[in-house]
């Protein structure tokens, strides 16, 4: 039952990400709901389950993307990273989730930017940094919402 709920939750996230969020961009920046969900679920659930959730989320995201199919791998790595850091940390789960989103979002975008840059595509560093900042803020703003929805969805 919980697996079914999680799949349904991911499908709802996909709908929001692809259909609703384009109408509510923040100065052109869009959040990555899947990244936020993966971080929060990793904090809330057991390590094994959360990594499978991350793989599922990334896989779904890859299916509805084009060009760069790295979401499955990157979301699994993020989940393992958050799980690994979480083993060493004691504190409030929501604050820890927010801190991880605040650290991982820019890190993820910087790595992606470097990959694109060394792939031969040069771009404005200023605008890219601005996008990193805006996306991070947007992701952070959505942490409480996703946290609440995820608690409702999984009962954890």
């Amino acid at each position: 039952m919980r697996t079914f709920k999680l799949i349904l939750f991911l499908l709802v996230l996909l709908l929001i990400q692809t259909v609703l969020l384009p109408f509510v961009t923040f100065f052109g920046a869009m959040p990555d709901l899947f990244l936020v969900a993966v971080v929060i679920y990793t904090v809330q659930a057991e390590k094994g389950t959360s990594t499978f959730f991350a793989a599922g989320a990334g896989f779904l995201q890859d299916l509805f993307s084009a060009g760069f199919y790295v979401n499955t791998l990157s979301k699994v790595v993020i989940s393992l990273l958050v799980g690994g850091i979480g083993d060493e940390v004691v504190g409030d789960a929501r604050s820890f989730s927010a801190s991880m989103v605040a650290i991982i979002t820019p890190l993820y975008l910087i790595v992606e930017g470097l990959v694109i840059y060394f792939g031969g595509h040069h771009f404005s560093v200023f605008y890219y940094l601005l996008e990193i900042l805006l996306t991070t803020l947007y992701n952070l703003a959505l942490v409480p919402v996703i946290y609440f929805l995820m608690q409702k969805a999984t009962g954890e």
Partner: protein
Amino acid sequence: MKPYRGARRKSSYRPAVIIVLLALLLSYFTINNSFGIRYIFTSIFYPIQYSVQYVVKGALSVPANIIALHNLSRENKDLKTRLTTSISKLALFEELVNENVRLRQALDFQGTNRYRFKLGVAQVIARGASPYTSLMEINQGVLSGVRVDMTVIVEAGLVGRVVEVSLFSSKVILITDLKSSVAAVDQQNREFGVVEGFANQHSLAMKYVSSVGEIAVGDKIVTSPASKIFPPGIPIGTVAQVKKRDSDLFYDVRVKPAVNFSKLEEVFLIY
């Protein structure tokens, strides 16, 4: 508040390695579109996506529709006047077209048919699932005859090209994407270059414009005849900034896109 305790038992690296390998396998399936996996998922999910976007767009357009209703009567009157004027202009235009065709034939000009695109209309139903790519999904797919690399335009100019096609829908990569490259030419000076995404949907970069050539702010940039994907002459944008140092081989050119990418609802495919 739920306390988070990092008291989970530290496990070996084996499960993590297995999951990473599984993730790599899934990525391999996605990249190669094994068993038509992307095609199947996109086609299954299409009706839900389409329905939701239909409801959302409908809900968002209600306030605008109410305001628009007030202006309809006045606009109708205005349009009737403009229509009368246009009919007379159209007659003149048709005459000019005929004259143009005759003159072209007289000059033995080849490719007179080049700009007469066969267009198909498509509705934007979604954006890409990954926010880091400038991607959109349209409601025309294989069943409508859409193919990969088809050019997508709007009245104002070039939007992008089709990168993936499924049964009912297709994915279009916008020219603002960092990985997008379009062979372009300055309409005035015929200087060639490559227009690329610039991490900003309000600005594009035009690269490889030779510094010995001439390019100026305000010049119109269109698709180049050298492009193997895009038909020539489609507006891309207007030169907004030109920089060059004495030692540079190329100009550093910024182009303001002709299309407002944040307000795309309907687009046209060139068949």
